[in-house]
């Protein structure tokens, strides 16, 4: 067979090449283990996500003692369900009520509670969201299709590298007697950041 692969010159995207260069340097110096890097990617690309947070919320809806614990020491209460680790070392749960709606942002970069929500969605990292969430939270909420009643106060929480927030949305009406799993299905990622509400059962 004549070989014709010169028609298919391999090419690395500049950022791909740059990242490989960084990894090569760090690996050669023994500072990182490529297998550990692979494991981190697998964790955040596939394993950890907002279903974890949904379980926390469903439990809080269904178990008043747990909700109290969550309010007092969110880090410990969340860890008791098996969700702990990187970027979840110091958690605070903020509870929505009829009077207060909580909204979470990171104005500096993209601090986010990884153990319960995974990595942040694109919009959370955008300069528009990061600046507008503080200055005009109601307008931001309207962009997400959320119009709050006049009497509701919007409280904005600015995450830091040290303290991460999880919004506990209000339990929707008509969910009495539902199992925790069924309740968790109503809890969206947006509802735990504050840009949405929990879903009403169909």
């Amino acid at each position, binding site marked *: 067979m004549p070989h014709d692969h010169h028609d298919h010159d391999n090419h690395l*995207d500049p950022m791909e090449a740059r990242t490989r260069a960084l990894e090569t340097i760090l690996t050669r110096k023994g500072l990182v283990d490529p297998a*550990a890097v692979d494991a981190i990617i697998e964790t955040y690309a596939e394993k950890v996500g907002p279903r974890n947070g949904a379980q926390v919320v469903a439990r809080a809806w269904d178990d008043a003692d747990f909700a109290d614990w969550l309010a007092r020491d969110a880090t410990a209460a969340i860890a008791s369900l098996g969700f702990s680790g990187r970027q979840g070392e110091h958690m605070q749960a903020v509870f929505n009520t009829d009077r207060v709606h909580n909204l979470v942002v990171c104005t500096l970069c993209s601090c986010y509670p990884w153990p319960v929500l995974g990595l942040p969605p694109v919009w959370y990292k955008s300069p528009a969201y990061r600046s507008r969430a503080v200055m005009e939270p109601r307008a931001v909420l309207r962009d997400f299709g959320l119009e709050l009643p006049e009497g509701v106060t919007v409280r904005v929480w600015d995450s830091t590298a040290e303290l991460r927030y999880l919004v506990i949305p209000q339990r929707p009406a008509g969910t009495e007697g539902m199992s925790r799993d069924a309740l968790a299905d109503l809890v969206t990622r947006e509802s735990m950041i504050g840009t949405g509400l929990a879903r009403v059962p169909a």
Partner: protein
Amino acid sequence: MHGRVILNQPDATRPDAPFTEPWQARVFALTVAMNEAGHFSWPDWAAVFGRHLKGARDGAGEYWHAWAAALEEMLALGGVAEGGEVAALTRRWQDAAHATPHGQPIELENAGRHRHG
């Protein structure tokens, strides 16, 4: 859909995917691994990353470019890797790609090799 006005979705099929290109996942994981190994604290990282993000516009691509630039700065600050070393090795990886027959894994050792020679 939620949040049309401030959304900027690079990948309409998986708008919530944390990474849209493999290098983004890699540079993310390298940063986490370096933090975990104690080479820098997360607050120090966030301060440098936040500064790089200031110039970035909307969109996942710019976010990850800022992330990569911040990691390079952290490594330079820590005396782990200078910019020149990174640039030289980047070129070597690109040479290796050109020297590697299509369909075979790109290995750094291939850099400088002449495929048809």
